[in-house]
């Protein structure tokens, strides 16, 4: 099963070696379970609202105004951070940065754990990060931190995240925000 928590220093085992693959279309995945998207959205909202230093990591596909979809998503992600009481730390590019990153204000896919450790982040949403770099980062985070990772993906999802919701376009983010508002109210947060 997908391990939540430190697995020593190597990004092993990866989720596919536990037989986990990206969820089928129309479904989401919570740890090892394939679930309905709404179930996952509720759980993700609950985890974000109840974990210390919950953070959203927006990636290049939403940070930059390169398409109409990106512009819409930017507005929604900003709103999402407010609803979830979450901080935002950008992954603005993928380079191994020289001389080093500032983990206070940025996250880098080559050593994402630095940012998570530094800010003691216990739950995080990756959104707008290209799938390859999201997966490289999620494997490292999965093995080296106890952060609950959430892959909100516009494409097929991420089995190395603790929770993954796939095919998330602007209208889906809007729906998630509404669900998050309900969960927030239920939790009295």
């Amino acid at each position, binding site marked *: 099963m997908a391990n939540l928590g430190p697995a020593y220093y190597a990004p092993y085992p*990866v989720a596919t070696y536990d037989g986990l693959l990206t969820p089928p279309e129309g479904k989401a995945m919570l740890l090892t379970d394939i679930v309905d998207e709404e179930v996952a959205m509720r759980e993700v909202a609950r985890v974000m609202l109840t974990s210390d230093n919950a953070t959203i990591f927006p990636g290049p596909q939403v940070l930059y105004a390169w398409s109409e979809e990106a512009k819409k998503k930017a507005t929604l992600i900003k709103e999402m951070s407010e609803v979830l009481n979450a901080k935002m730390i950008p992954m603005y590019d993928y380079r191994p940065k020289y001389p080093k990153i500032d983990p206070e204000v940025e996250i880098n896919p080559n050593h994402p754990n630095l940012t998570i450790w530094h800010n003691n982040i216990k739950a995080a949403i990756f959104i707008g990060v*290209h799938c390859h770099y999201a997966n*490289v980062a999620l494997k490292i985070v999965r093995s080296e931190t106890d952060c609950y990772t959430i892959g909100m993906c516009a494409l097929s999802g991420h089995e190395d995240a603790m929770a993954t919701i796939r095919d998330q376009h602007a209208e889906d983010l809007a729906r998630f925000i509404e669900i998050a508002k309900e969960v927030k109210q239920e939790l009295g947060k």
Partner: protein
Amino acid sequence: MSIKNMTKEKNWSGQKLVSTDYMLFEAPREKHFMTGSEVTKEAIKRCTVDASVSYPITPQSEAAHLIGELWAEGYVGMYFRGENEFGVMSEVAGCAMAGARTVTTTSGPGTLRAMENFPMWSGTRIPVQLILMARGINSPLTIQPDNLEVTFMLETGCMIWYAENVQELFDMTIAGFTVAEMPDVHVPIVTVVDGFFVSHTRESVMLPPDDIALMPYDPYKAPLPPIDSEMPPGRFLRDPFVMKSNYISYATHASWQWEVRSAVDRSIPYARHYLNGLAHVTGDLDAEIVFVACGTASHQAKEANRELTKLGIKSKVVKLRTIRPFPHAELLEATKSAKHIFVPEFNIVGWLEKEVTQSLYGKSEAKIIGRPRVAGGMSMPVEAILHEVLEHVNEEKGA
């Protein structure tokens, strides 16, 4: 011919765009009689291919010529002859990184000359299709069929599928682009056939009409931005020296490599769908004698199965259609009844036998026999297979 001629309904050559499901499973088909090289042309013609780079080497040259003809006829966007296979595989990588649906072909020594490129391909997550028409590798020189080269490809991080005949080559080529381009897969696909036995043999083949073609490739769904300055981040190196990242950067390289292998695994459900299963089983399902093979060796194993049936000996054939991902679950299921597993191969090292042995280790009590093995262009007569089977079975009976 220009990409500007493409509409939502038609590609630049005027073919109607259809889904892969329609192309493979629904479109009406007509019978034709052609070689593996000729059917490669027919498959590529229906795939809305942007780019191809070629280089002569027997036995794949004819397939490469015919892709060139498709370019001249306006079906393939761009095409040229590269300087050698190392160059070709790098040129192909450039095409694919720049967002083009790309195909190339090679054989034996060409594969080995190009070798450094293949892990680079998978590492940079390009969905290139390489149609590999296997032949022997030097030394000494031979142009004859022999699939030793496949063993060198096994750990490159590319998907490897193996077609038995002309029909499978056609269908796999079409499915190959589709599965390789899935956003969560997006690694190269190596579609292998045995050179000459498939490339040069004329067979009956059922083809859908040639006025339909696959939807174009969408590079903006790739797991890495295409190199075209049209997608953020604007600052983007494909691919960086990760060791220059500070702090625990070894984790990046390790994670990256795991990710490529994960991507190959993610192809399993897609491949099961488009290939109608990763393995095909024929013969007596409860047989204790099981042949596990791929390519034309599985054809010969099926012949042996028929001969054994005449002798009253039950057997079955498990034809592996994907080698990467390796169909562990299918193999285990199909060999449950087995007491003797024969792995006939067209090479001297027995790479498939090693794969089968490793996959079944601790899970099967069957004896795995890596025979017969032929190489260097030898054919695999059914008698050779029967000889191995009868020898082992009689030995056990104390005859």
